Structures are given as structure tokens and as C-alpha cells.
């Protein structure tokens, strides 16, 4: 075995190198698994290149193994043949002695040369291949490195961003609080202003509604007086008090005699006057109308 290794040292070395590389690749790939997942979210290119590297390595390894086995088989067969030939030749040597041995030697030398040449070529090729592989691997590694860096950078950036966001939020919060405080103060101020305005408005409204009430009282009195026909022989000094209920339309809903004059015809004239005057000119404002919903009227015949 050792001999075989000695004989095929180059191939063995290549195999070992490839194994190591393969392992490293595998390890790296395995290590990368996790970050890969993170990266997945970042972009497809990185993932695709990583997978390519993987599959490529496996391919190389396979080819290498196949080659090795073939070589081994070949070597074994050759050795057996050589041993057989050796034994035959030992007799032949004896027969042909040196001559044949020299020829064999020459032949073997030639074969070894060819083999050497072939192996050198093979080695060069393999070297080339290895170099290429290494190159590729390097690129991949660099790529990975770059990606890792990128990832880290990204992570850093994200962290930074998060930090910034946090700071921004805090700032915002502070600003908001300040704003709220300012707003609350403004509100308070505005409310106070509003309250004052309302008071002023109410006073104004009251003043105005008082004016409206007075105006409508005059209108109502005039309309009832226009409609108040008294009986001809009304004695003087009569007085009748009634309570009326009005609708917002001014229509008289009910007339109740609160205090009779004692003269029924006169009382009736009062009631009729109100009904005749219906609808009474009440204010249209529903709030002010409330004042007119129930009215007390005192009737006294005028001096005519």
C-alpha cells in the first residue's frame, strides 16, 4: 500500500487535496446554511452561486474518484502482468540473458518514459485543473466573503437603521408630547375663549331674543285687538284673564278662562278674539317660541 502511495504519490496528493477542499467546501457550505437563509430574503444571485459551487465540487470529486479507481485497477493488472512476465523472462533472461533483459529494460524504460511523460502531462493537466478549481474556489470564497461582508454590513446597517429609527421614534415621541402639551394648552386657551364667546353670544342672544319676544308680543297684542269684537252693552270695568296654549305654527290649541269677568258674553268675546286671531304671530325660532307656548292674557275693554 505504502508502495502504491509512493508509486502514485502525485495522484494521492491530488486526492487528499481534493478531499480537504471538498470537506472545507462542505463545511463552509454547512456554515453558510444559516446565513443563507437570511440572505435568501436579500437576493437570488447569492443563493444561486452557492448552489453552483456545491454541485460543482461534488462533480469534481466524483470524477476524481473514478479516475483513481481506474488507475488503481490498471496498475494492479499491469503489476500482475509484469510479475508474470518477470517470471517468464527470468528464464528467458537466463536464456537470452542480458540481451533480452536489455531489450526489456529498454522497453520498460520506454514504457516508463511514456508513462512518466503521460503522468507528467496528466499531472500538468491536473495541476491546471486544480489551479482552475482553486481559482474558482477562491472566487467562490471571495464571493462568499463578500456576501458575508455584505450581510454583515447589511446587518450593521439594519442595526444602525433600527437605532436611528429608535432615536427617531424617541425624538418623535418627544416632539409629539411637546406638541400635545402645546395643543392641550392651545385647547385650553381656545376653550376659555369659546366659553367667553359663548357667554358673550348668550348675552347677545338674550338681548336679541328679548327684542324678538317684545316685538312678537306687540304683534300678538295687535292681532288679538284687531279681532276683539266686544258685545255692544259691555259694562265698564270688566276684566277677563285667560291662558292660551300655542303651537309653533301660532295656532291656538286651547283657551282657558283663568279669571272670568262675570259677564259671560264678554268672556266669550275674549275667547273668540283669540281664536279669530289664530294663528298668532309667534317667533319662528323654536327656542324663543318656548316663551310663547303658554301665554296669559288679561283683557280689559278699551274706552271707545
Amino acid at each position, binding site marked *: 500500500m505504502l508502495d502504491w502511495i509512493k508509486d502514485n504519490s502525485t495522484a494521492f496528493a491530488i486526492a487528499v487535496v481534493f478531499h480537504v477542499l471538498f470537506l472545507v467546501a462542505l463545511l463552509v457550505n454547512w456554515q453558510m446554511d444559516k446565513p443563507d437563509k437570511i440572505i435568501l430574503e436579500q437576493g437570488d444571485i447569492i443563493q444561486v452561486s452557492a448552489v453552483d459551487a456545491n454541485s460543482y465540487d461534488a462533480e469534481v470529486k466524483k470524477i476524481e474518484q473514478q479516475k483513481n479507481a481506474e488507475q488503481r485497477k490498471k496498475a494492479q493488472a499491469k503489476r500482475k502482468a509484469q510479475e508474470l512476465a518477470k517470471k517468464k523472462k527470468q528464464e528467458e533472461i537466463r536464456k537470452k540473458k542480458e540481451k533480452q533483459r536489455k531489450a526489456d529494460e529498454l522497453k520498460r524504460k520506454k514504457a516508463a518514459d511514456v508513462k512518466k511523460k503521460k503522468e507528467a502531462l496528466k499531472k500538468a493537466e491536473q495541476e491546471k485543473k486544480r489551479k482552475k478549481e482553486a481559482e474558482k474556489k477562491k472566487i467562490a470564497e471571495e464571493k462568499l466573503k463578500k456576501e458575508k461582508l455584505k450581510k454583515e454590513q447589511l446587518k450593521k446597517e439594519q442595526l444602525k437603521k433600527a437605532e436611528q429609527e429608535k432615536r427617531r421614534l424617541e425624538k418623535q415621541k418627544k416632539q409629539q408630547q411637546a406638541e400635545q402639551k402645546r395643543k392641550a394648552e392651545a385647547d385650553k386657551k381656545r376653550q376659555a375663549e369659546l366659553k367667553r364667546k359663548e357667554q358673550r353670544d348668550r348675552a347677545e342672544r338674550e338681548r336679541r331674543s328679548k327684542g324678538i319676544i317684545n316685538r312678537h308680543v306687540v304683534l300678538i297684542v295687535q292681532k288679538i285687538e284687531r279681532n276683539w269684537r266686544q258685545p255692544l*252693552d259691555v259694562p265698564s270695568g270688566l276684566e277677563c284673564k285667560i291662558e292660551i296654549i300655542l303651537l309653533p305654527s301660532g295656532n291656538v290649541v286651547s283657551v282657558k278662562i283663568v279669571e272670568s269677568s262675570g259677564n259671560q258674553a264678554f268672556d266669550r268675546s275674549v275667547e273668540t278674539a283669540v*281664536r279669530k286671531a289664530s294663528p298668532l304671530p309667534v317667533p319662528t325660532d323654536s327656542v324663543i317660541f318656548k316663551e310663547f307656548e303658554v*301665554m296669559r292674557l288679561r283683557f280689559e275693554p278699551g274706552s271707545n
Partner: protein
Amino acid sequence: MQYTKLTIRVAPFLLFFFSLLFVINSVFVNQAHAVLEVEIKGGFQSADPIAIVPFSWSQSGKAPVDIASIISRDLARSGVFSPLSLNQLPEHPTMEGSINFPRWKNTNAENLVIGQVAAIGQGRFEIKFKMLDIFTGKSSIEYRYEVAQKQLRRVAHQISDQIYQKLTHTKGAFDTLIAYVVVNNDVDSKKRIYTLAVADSDGYSEQIILKSKKPIMSPIWSPNGKRLSYVSFEKNRSIIYMQELKSGKRKTIAQFKGINSAPAWSPDGKRLAMTLSKDGNSEIYVMHIASGVLQRITNHYSIDTEPAWAPDGRSLVFTSDRAGKPQIYQVAINQQGRSGNPKRLTYDGNYNAGASFSPDGKSLVLITREQGRFRVGVLELASRQLQILTRSRLDESPSFAPNGKMVLYATELSGRGILEAIAVDGSHSPQRLRVLSGDVREPAWSPYRR
């Protein structure tokens, strides 16, 4: 400690309760405060505008009596009402359901009278009427009558009374009678014919009580409205008679020597005051009808005449010229006769005569002379205020309606006597009664019919 605990436990409820009370209280106060109190002075006085729609009639053609127009004229004559004329009526509904109230609100009427007349066979008629308040849409009176044809006019007057009573709160006096004397000139004999007649208060449905070629004077109603007393000269001298209207039976009351005149029935119907000159001078006497016993009330050399009873039967007023010119005097009376000395009541002007009491006894209606014209005046006894009602030239024989709201009197129109009625408050112009043919004099308004 127990007490404190209890207080603590009760406190929240109390608080809630008090707050509730406060809320309720404040609402109440607000409401009480919210009631507007308004004073209305003025207005105007006028006759009551009323709409009387022609009544429907069940048969084709014209109804035997236009009840609506009788009511309308009755109410107008009272002076208290001013019924809308036919062309002022926006529609002629005869059933409540067909009244379009908004249209009536545009007239100045306050009340609306509708009705139906139907012939129900055997010469009988059904009359239904209803009065509605235009502004409430409510029916205020509703009546149904069933009468013979000759009573249709009376039904109309009764409806007038219902309306009058409802709207003035005073009894109406439309379903009453008047008695009067008509003087006609007979074309053939060129002699005067005197007629004592009775008619409805509007002058229609005249019935003749007595016809004579000699003067008939001073008709007066018995308090129960069933008899008339009057003076007739049919025997060429003045005699006081009493006549029952229904039977036409009559009785001679006074045919003393000299003047027998101016009968006046006491409110209890048992005595008759009159003017007699059997003792030489015109004096006032009271006769107890049943016994014929006479009591002399006045004793004065001047003329005392035209006695009239106070509604309480405790005094008489009469006309006397004992102060030089005719004036009204009052004398107290009891069952035995005079119970006091005559007191003068009138001082306005130099002629006041023919007084009679208002049903409430508070005033007198009389003829007063003003600027040479004889007019109807009302003297309020408490204040001695004399209000002149008429503007005519020659009024005579005023008498109150039984409700005291109107005065009936005779006046002169182009040399002929006519009857007029006027509202006592003097706010309305005189209303002429149906113009009768001839010269109408000495009207007397009957008491309420029973």
C-alpha cells in the same frame, strides 16, 4: 353612633333626592317664569256678525216659510247682531258635514246657523237647526221642532231666542206678541175704522181682536199674556174692557162717569191701575179686579195720568203736570193703597210722559221732548240719567220688551203712524217693524209667552 351610621347610609339617597328636587324645582320655576303675561286693552264694540244660512226644504219649490230670513231679521232688529246678507255667505251648507270652515273664517261672522225644514205629512213640519262656532267648529246649540204650518213662524222666533240666549246670555224676546191699534180710513164711508190687533214681535201673523168705528186706546197686556185691557169709545164714552185673547170673551172693568183711561195691570195680575175723572179731576186709582174695589192713589188738582207698575208691585209711576209741565212721579203702593207721597223723578226738559218700567225695575222708558220733538228716552233711576234713544219727531207709547233689551214705540213716517223697535243701549239705529197698512199707534209688548 347608630344615628351617624344611619345618616351615612341615607345620605347618598338624600343627596340624590335633593338634587332631583332641585332639578324639578328649577324646571318648575323656569316654566312659571316663562309664562308670558300680556295685557290686551281696546278692541272694538260692534253688533255680533252672525251667518244664517237659508234652511233646506224637503220638497220642490219654495218652503212655506223662510225660517232663516225670519231669524236673520229678528236678530238684526235686536241691534245686538248684524247678520250677514245673503251675498256675504260664501256657501249655503245645510248639514254640518258640508261646512267648509276656512271659507267662513274669511267672513267676519263668528257663528254659523244652518237648518233643514221637511214636510212630514198630515200638514206637519219638522225643523232642525244647529249653531256652530266658526272658530272652534263646535256646535253650540241644536234643536228639533215638529209643528203645524201655521206655527212655522213661531218656530223661527223660538230659534232666534235660542241663538240670542246662547250668545248674549240674556233671554230672547222674539217669541212674543205685540198689541197695537190701527186706524184706517174707509174709502166708501170716508169714516175711520179702528182695529185692535195682535201680531208676532216682528209685526207678522196679525190677528184682529176688535174692530170699531170709534176710537180704541191704550191696549195693555195682562202679566200672564192671556188677556188685554184697553179703552174703547164704542159706546161713545170711554170704557175700560178686559178681553181674553183665546176666547174673545170680554168684561167691562170701568165705566165711571167722565174719563176711564190708561189701564195698567199690576205684576200679580190682581189689580188694575187706571185714570178716572169720576171725582172731577184726572186721578190715579187702583182697582182690585175680583172685587171691583177702588183705591184712590193721587189727589191733586192737576192732571195725573198714565200709571205704570214697578215690577215689584210696590210703587207706581205716573205723569203729572202738577209742576206746570208734564213730568214723571213715583208713588209707593201697598194693598191698602198709597203708602207715601209722590216724588218727582224727571227734571230733564219740560216734557216727560208715558213712562213704564223696565223688567228689572232699574229704569223707565218714556217720551221726552227735546227741541220741540218727542223722543224715546230711558231714565236710569239710580243715577237719574236720561238717555235719549231716538232721533225722530213724534214718538209715542214706548214699552220694554220682556227681556228689557229693546223698546217698542210708535212713531210717525210721512204723517202715518208706524212701529219701531230700538235696542236699549242706543248703539243701533231703530228697526222698523213690518209696515202695516194704516196709521199704527199705541203698541204694547207682551210678556214672555207661556
